[in-house]
């Protein structure tokens, strides 16, 4: 059904198309005719121009010719023979013929006299009498000649010939006749007529056989009406065309010549045109059918392909829509990707910003945290908005826990139990918190858990345009400044005291000397006091100057190589005369010959300061031990006492200048507070360090180190022998003696020689100590208080392999020598004894001790085994004694104290 409708539609279209073509053909044909007519008109116009031109030229030429002819005729009227005249006329005729060229054929020429008689007639160049000019024509010529006046040339056409006429006059101006030249003309057209302005045909050329008058149109296939219409149109219109009865077309064009309007008519045969049109129409119709057939065929083909194409197009359309959808999706995706990229860029920018911000924040945080004071800020409502590290440290330490306060009021209330005068400070702080313009600075003393001082500064936070947005609190720890102040005033007080005391004596005694006469011994005594006090004053001033010099770096140190032994000797020399309560013991631990590069005087000063401190701060007496050991590249010297010890909180400040432990026990102990500071400066200048170890109440120990000088240093030391002796005494000696005075004597003697000593007064303590400390020699009394006597101690020693080889010197008031020697005792010292005796004995025992005896069963195999073992351990055997059933192997022994066999 649909297809049917479709075909019907197409069919209708074709019909409409055909009709349109047909009508178009008609139009084309009509157009063609019109074109033909236009062409006719164009031809007419062209002809008109030709005719007009030729006519004018001809008239001019003829006029010339005729006048010339006339002259010839008139001058030779009688005398000239006719032949001659004929000749002249013939020449004129050929001239005229030339003018008309090939378009017209010269027919002949007539010459008429003034009475109208033909005088001369030339036909084809030859005058002929057989063809006379009709009278009528001659009449016309005369009429015309009269009308135009003399000398004018005019032409007429009778349908087959053109008559060119010119009036001729004599020299006297008498009309002599007419010269008529007849020209026969071939025409290209079906008809040519000329009319004058009155409608008379003046010229007509056949084939159209045109009539001269409107009435005569009819006779020439024009109807009456037609003729009239033609005439009226000719008269009124400029140019145009009209159809004649016989079907031809007349084209008319006006020609104005010699004050007359002439019309040129060109006739076309309409039938020829119609035939042409019909032929054309047939051809076109055939063409049309062919076109229709082809169109149908094409349509059918098109329809078939159209169906396919339709399907294909549908698919394509769907494809396209899919593609479009796809493209759309891709676009969307691209858009999303772009947006993603944008978001990512924004993100990265944000990240950068945030990093920069964090960096900035960190920087500010670092700055704020490292200003060394606590900073907190509150807003106008009194909420804590910011605290820096310093602030947290101060108050976390004070409150003993993390501080997380949002409200400043709570924070301030908390201060109550930690600061002095809290009842004044807390309300003041609260008042300031609410105040918006007061700036205030106050000091605050922390009383718990530690004593500290703070300076608290507070001011309103003023932002842009003077807007107060909170309050800032800055809290600085001024404990140090306070301490410095305290130290300074204490220094003044101390210095004052230290200076005034000797000054009192000096001034007082000198005044006494001046005012009183004194006994000589009293005088001497007073002067000595003055001298001593003055020296004391000098020392004090010296100390001041020392510390000042060292601190300013102006102190020069004259370093030279000295042995530790020398240093120790000097120290011992300085304190040879100490009071009885104190004992000085030196333990060199084999360092006596170690060389250090130092300024001897300054190191002596250090030793002196430290030892005198040890004496000063052990008011109850006791041993003061001076030891030296090698610690890496350094020699470490330690000075230990059994005195007051150092309070924990004072340890940090010990080496601070003018610091003195503030304690009642120490009040009585004088000093400038400069000694340790000087020590520190000296030791530091030597590339060493100094420190203290102490338990409060149990004595203190001060240590300092000095770098060991290069081993290639050589040194000449007069006390070298003594040092080598003492080197072996790197372990202390033990004195087991219940007589205190004897102990003092023995210890004094031994220490004087550089031996370290320990003393106990009963056997139990002795054994305990022996197990704790390795002793070089033990000096043992037999009669001891307590449960153990000397023999018991000796037995216990020998029973233990670790102690079996310690040399023992028995000191007894009883004569027990045999008993003693039988019990593997090195020496026996009978009381009372001399100090020298003891000393010699000790030294002898030590020399002996450099060998070691080994006792073993006298078994050959065992002996061999022991020797092999000793050899493998690179222990030299000094001698082997054979005592019957046992052998004694003596070893060369320095470092190997015990060999178990």
């Amino acid at each position, binding site marked *: 059904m649909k297809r049917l409708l479709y075909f019907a539609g197409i069919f209708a279209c074709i019909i409409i198309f055909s009709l349109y073509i047909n009508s178009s053909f008609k139009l084309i044909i009509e157009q063609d005719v019109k074109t033909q007519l236009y062409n006719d008109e164009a031809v007419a116009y062209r002809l008109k121009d030709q005719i007009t031109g030729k006519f004018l030229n001809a008239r001019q030429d003829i006029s010339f010719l005729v006048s010339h002819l006339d002259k010839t005729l008139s001058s030779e009227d009688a005398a000239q023979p006719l032949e001659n005249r004929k000749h002249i006329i013939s020449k004129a005729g050929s001239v005229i013929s030339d003018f008309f060229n090939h378009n017209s054929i010269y027919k002949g020429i007539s010459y008429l006299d003034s009475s109208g008689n033909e005088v001369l007639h030339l036909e084809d160049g030859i005058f002929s009498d057989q063809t006379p000019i009709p009278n009528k024509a001659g009449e016309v010529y005369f009429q015309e000649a009269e009308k135009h006046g003399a000398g004018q040339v005019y032409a007429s056409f009778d349908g087959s010939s053109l008559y060119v006429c010119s009036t001729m006059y004599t020299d006297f101006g008498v009309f002599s006749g007419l010269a008529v030249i007849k020209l026969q003309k071939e025409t290209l057209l079906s008809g040519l007529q000329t009319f004058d302005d009155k409608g008379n045909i003046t010229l007509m050329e056949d084939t159209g056989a045109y009539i001269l008058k409107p009435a005569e149109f009819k006779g020439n296939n024009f109807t009456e009406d037609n003729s009239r219409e033609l005439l009226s149109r000719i008269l009124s219109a400029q140019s145009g065309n009209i159809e004649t009865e016989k079907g031809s077309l007349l084209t008319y064009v006006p020609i104005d010549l010699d004050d007359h309007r002439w019309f040129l008519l060109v006739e076309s045969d309409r039938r020829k045109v119609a035939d042409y049109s019909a032929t054309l129409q047939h051809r076109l119709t055939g063409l049309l059918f062919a076109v229709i057939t082809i169109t149908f065929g094409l349509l059918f083909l098109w329809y078939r392909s159209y169906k396919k194409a339709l399907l294909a197009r549908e698919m394509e359309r769907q494809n396209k829509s899919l593609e479009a959808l796809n493209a759309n999706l891709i676009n969307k995706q691209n858009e999303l990707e772009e947006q993603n990229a944008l978001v990512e860029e924004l993100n990265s920018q944000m990240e950068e910003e945030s990093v920069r911000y964090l960096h900035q924040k960190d920087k500010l945080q670092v700055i704020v945290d490292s200003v060394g004071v606590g900073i907190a800020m509150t807003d106008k409502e009194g909420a804590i908005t910011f605290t820096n590290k310093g602030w947290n440290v101060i108050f976390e330490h004070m409150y003993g826990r993390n501080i997380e306060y949002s409200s400043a009021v709570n924070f301030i209330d908390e201060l109550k139990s930690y600061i002095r005068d809290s009842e004044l400070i807390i309300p003041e702080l609260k008042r300031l918190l609410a105040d918006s313009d007061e700036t205030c600075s106050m000091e605050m003393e922390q009383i718990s858990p530690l004593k500290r001082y703070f300076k608290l500064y507070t001011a309103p936070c003023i932002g842009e345009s003077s807007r107060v947005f909170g309050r800032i609190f800055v809290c600085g720890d001024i404990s140090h400044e306070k301490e410095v102040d305290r130290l300074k005033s204490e220094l003044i007080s101390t210095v*004052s005291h230290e200076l005034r*005391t000797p*000054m009192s004596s000096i*001034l007082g005694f000198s005044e*006494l000397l001046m005012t009183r006469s004194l006994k000589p011994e*009293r005088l001497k005594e*007073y002067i000595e*006091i003055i001298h001593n006090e003055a020296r004391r004053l000098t020392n004090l001033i010296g100390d001041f100057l020392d510390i000042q010099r060292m601190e300013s770096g102006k102190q020069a140190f004259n370093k030279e190589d000295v042995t530790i032994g020398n240093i120790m000797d000097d120290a011992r020399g300085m304190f040879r005369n100490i009071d009885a309560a104190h004992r000085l013991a030196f333990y060199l631990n084999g360092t006596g010959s170690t060389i250090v590069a130092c300024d001897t005087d300054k190191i002596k000063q250090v030793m002196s300061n430290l030892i005198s401190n040890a004496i000063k701060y052990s008011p109850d007496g006791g041993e003061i031990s001076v030891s030296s050991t090698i610690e890496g590249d350094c020699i470490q010297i330690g000075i230990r006492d059994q005195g007051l010890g150092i309070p924990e909180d004072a340890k940090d400040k010990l080496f601070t200048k003018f610091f003195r432990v503030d304690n009642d026990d120490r009040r009585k102990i004088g000093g400038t507070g400069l000694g340790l500071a000087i020590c520190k400066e000296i030791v530091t200048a030597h590339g060493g360090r100094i420190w203290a170890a102490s338990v409060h109440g149990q004595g203190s120990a001060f240590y300092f180190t000095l770098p060991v000088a290069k081993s290639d240093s050589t040194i000449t030391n007069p006390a070298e022998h003594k040092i080598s002796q003492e080197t072996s005494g790197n372990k202390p000696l033990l004195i087991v003696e219940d007589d205190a005075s004897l102990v003092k004597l023995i210890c004094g003697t031994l220490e004087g020689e550089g031996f370290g000593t320990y003393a106990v007064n009963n056997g139990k303590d002795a054994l305990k100590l022996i197990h704790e400390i390795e002793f070089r020699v033990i000096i043992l009394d037999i009669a001891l208080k307590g449960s153990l006597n000397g023999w018991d101690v000796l037995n216990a020693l020998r029973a233990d392999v670790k102690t079996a080889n310690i040399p023992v010197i028995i000191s007894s008031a009883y004569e027990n020598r045999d008993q003693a020697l039988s019990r593997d005792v090195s020496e026996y010292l009978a009381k009372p004894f001399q100090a020298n005796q003891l000393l010699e004995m000790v030294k002898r025992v030590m020399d002996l001790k450099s060998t070691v005896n080994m006792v073993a069963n006298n078994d050959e195999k065992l002996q061999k085994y022991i020797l092999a073992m000793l050899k493998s351990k690179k222990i030299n055997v000094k001698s082997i004694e054979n005592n019957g059933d046992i052998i004694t192997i003596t070893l060369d022994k320095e470092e190997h104290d015990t060999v178990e066999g």
Partner: protein
Amino acid sequence: MRKVLIADDEKALRMLIVGTLEIGDFEVLEADNGIDALKMAENECPDLLILDVMMPGMTGYEVCRQVKSSDALKNTKVLILTAKGQESDKRTAEEVHADCYLSKPFSPMELLSTVEDILSRQVPI
């Protein structure tokens, strides 16, 4: 014979004072610390105590305070000697009701006249 107790931890100072007082007619006792000084004062009831401030065991101020608060020693005059010589020391001396205050270094003659002066103010019972 007027009895004077000297308490000072500096031997030289004690010797100076002893030497000075020898000029006058005095029985002179010596102590080298505050605690001993207080004990001796209680035992001997001296007419005058010359006290150093900075002494081991007990300061001169403390000795003075205890002497002045003791009925047995109500007639004992106290002279405080101090090497500090600051305003605060003088105030403290007044607070513990010391009769006189001298700062070191002092002139022995001035000390002598001061001692004479203080003791002459004493009203015999």
